[in-house]
């Protein structure tokens, strides 16, 4: 049985107090509690402070291009679907640069888990605005305030077909561990949007800010109710942040719908095709 230590690479380089520390611990704990080890899980890291978890977390991993972690993970999953695939990225990469991939991966219901670090800023490039910041947010790149309205990742994932939509908080690691476990366990596209204070560059969305505005979805909440979930995603406009699973359905994952993909082995493990005569006949 693997331990947290087995999953631990270098020590992180994040700022003291950064939400990444807590999210990092939550991810490793979830992996350990699920009985995984660094040889049994695939992780794709985006580029950014969150993506810098690449040297901290041991796994079969790709530290790819900014914004492209989702399609990279989709390829990894299709080639060898037996392996759980987790994407670790920020709101800049996943919702900004990679926004198109995010909505199409939701549509496809690819069986990958996104752990999105939602801190409303680009930390690694020193504090420019991220697309899910609040309208009017002042940053180095938007000194007069962001003109656009906020991108709503939960609503976007939900309306485009994601079958697991959840929100966590970096300040509550215990609850986050449970959410990540359920997200990885879920078959289909799962989003865990993690509200994460950036102590260095975001002076608005602080720990205190979130502590006052988050609340936990309790047992009475029906997460199979799409319309209810859609309503929950809109509370973000009133600066209310539900924590927990907003929506979950058992829609089949993309790879489960490929008729010719052997479900009990994988694309990588199936025998090679050698009956070329079948194709040659089209050309005579």
């Amino acid at each position, binding site marked *: 049985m693997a331990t947290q230590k087995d999953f631990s690479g270098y020590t992180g380089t994040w700022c003291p107090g950064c939400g990444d520390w807590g999210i990092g611990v939550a991810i490793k704990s979830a992996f350990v509690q699920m009985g995984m080890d*660094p040889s049994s899980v*695939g992780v794709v890291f985006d580029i950014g402070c969150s993506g810098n978890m690449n040297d901290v977390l041991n796994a079969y991993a790709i530290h790819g291009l900014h914004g*492209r972690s989702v399609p990279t993970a*989709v*390829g990894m999953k*299709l080639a060898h679907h037996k392996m759980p695939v987790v994407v670790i990225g920020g709101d800049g990469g996943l919702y900004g640069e990679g926004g198109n991939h995010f909505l199409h991966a939701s549509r496809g219901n690819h069986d990958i888990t996104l752990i999105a670090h939602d801190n409303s800023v680009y930390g690694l490039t020193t504090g420019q605005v991220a697309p899910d910041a609040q309208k009017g947010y002042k940053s180095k790149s938007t000194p007069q305030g962001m003109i656009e309205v906020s991108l709503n990742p939960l609503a976007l994932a939900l309306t485009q077909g994601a079958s697991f939509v959840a929100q966590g908080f970096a300040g509550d690691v215990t609850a986050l561990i449970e959410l990540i476990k359920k997200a990885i366990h879920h078959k289909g596209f799962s989003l865990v949007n993690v509200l994460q204070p950036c102590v260095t560059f975001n002076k608005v969305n602080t720990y205190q800010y979130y502590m006052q505005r988050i609340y936990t979805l309790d047992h009475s909440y029906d997460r199979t109710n799409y319309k209810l979930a859609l309503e929950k995603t809109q509370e973000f406009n009133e600066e209310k942040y539900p924590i927990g699973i907003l929506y979950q359905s058992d829609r089949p994952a993309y790879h489960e719908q490929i008729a*010719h993909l052997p479900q009990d082995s994988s694309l990588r493990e*199936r025998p090679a095709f050698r009956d070329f005569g079948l*194709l040659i006949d089209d050309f005579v």
Partner: protein
Amino acid sequence: MDLFLWKIGGEAGFGIMTTGLSFGKVAIRSGYHVFDYNEYPSLIRGGHNTYEVMISSQEVYAQKQDIDLLVCLNKDTYTHHKHRLTDKSIVVYDADEFTIEETGFVKLHIPFASMKKEHHVMQIMVNTIALGASLALLSGDIAIFYEIIEKEFKRKGEEVIAFNKKLTDLGFNYIKEHYSEHIKPVLTRKQEKSKMILTGNDAFSLAAVVADCRFYAAYPMTPSSTVLTSLAGWQDKSKMVVRHAEDEIAVMNTVLGASFAGVRSATGTSGGGFALMVEGISFAGVAEISVVVFLSQRPGPATGMPTWTEQGDLLFAVNAGHGEFPKIVLAPGDIHEMFELTLKAFDLADIYQMPVIVMSDKFLSESHKSVNKEDISNLFANYHPNRGKLVNAPGEGKYLRYKITDDGISERLLPGAPGAFYQVNSYEHVEDGHTTEEAAPRIEQVDKRSRKWQTYLDSHFKAPRVYGDIETADAVFVSWGGNKGPIIEAQKMLDAQGKKTAYIHFTHIYPMNTSIVKDILSKDKRYILIENNAHGQFGKLLTMETGIMIKESLLKYDGRPIYKEEIVAKVNT
């Protein structure tokens, strides 16, 4: 008559392409070699489509200027091609629909419009009547076309098959009854080895399956789209996973993810889509991920002329990707080379763990050529993938994905292997994959990656093939890619005129072994660079690599392929 050119034209959307290919199939099944070329606008309806097929008893590599039989389903076909008619040409047309004032060739009227009315057929079926007429004029065996109809319409039932046969007879019998004096022995049936007829795109697609490529992702873009649609259509049989993703950026990164996970993976596109993939190529370079990219060129810049041909992306492909990293660029010149080099590309990508680009263009991608079926079957049967240093289990000690080696190539461990883990990294990294910004490991890793190029040049680079004898040649052509066909055909014409030529045909475009190339280009000869672009990009690459400048050139960039007659004219200037 050993080189016969049949050409049909009509309005876009009326089945000209299908008819042209059926004609080609009749020719190969009758024992002949063919090469075809088609032109169509970037429209689905309303433009003008043409399809021409060269027929020969010998292997044939390109079309020619003179049209021997022109089938005009509208007036545009005549107007656009009358300059290519000679006193031996036959023009088939409907004199009730339009008149042809000019004389000097044979004009045969067939009342297509009234036949269409009388038999209540759609315009698309007039092609079948025209095909029947063409077969009669060329002494074709109508039974061969019947077989093709039976295969094509099998699912639609007996009634449809019988109706199509009837339409064929209509055209066939009209010629026999009215114009028997014009019948020529072009398609007289003879016993020959079985042939296949396919395009460059078909050859790439088939070879990808044979190479055990298991994942192909693409976004449609002319002229590469038929690779996506063929591979997608074959999935039930081949079990390949084919994904039409949201854009070329997603395509490239998805392919890299699949390749990392251990399956041979490829993508295909044209210039605009390739531009979007370029960051991913750089990623594949530093992270050392195997990938095959099929790049079928069309005239740019930007949207350019989508359905026409050009070789304008060579230097772009060679230089694709920011930063410095090794890649391999290959360029097949015909269908057979497309098979061979595609198979090789998948091996090279695995052996050297780097991007390999296979270049094509609209001319090679969409022109059909006949090849001997047995040759291809043998090529396939004898091919076995070489996956290089791919291993299933880690060896002794800590596994190092980017271990420094003499040949520059490190062992690649299949993800999921128990007892190990590693990351591939788009950042500069140390041997185990962890990110670094230190000077010494940076230099070590850059040097390691660069050494893969030297290993390739020593082990797998192939010197250009020379057609003809450079020593005795009056003119030496230097070219690459699909120009091979017109050049070889031009050499035959020049030979008949008593002019000796040689052709240096490059397929292993980049990197190149400079001493071999320098040597071959340094004779005291009249070298002529031939390219289907405006800037002479391959010439520039040769200068960059060897310092040699080829002074004379034939460059064509009007969207059309090079004609052999243009090459002959160049030599004779």
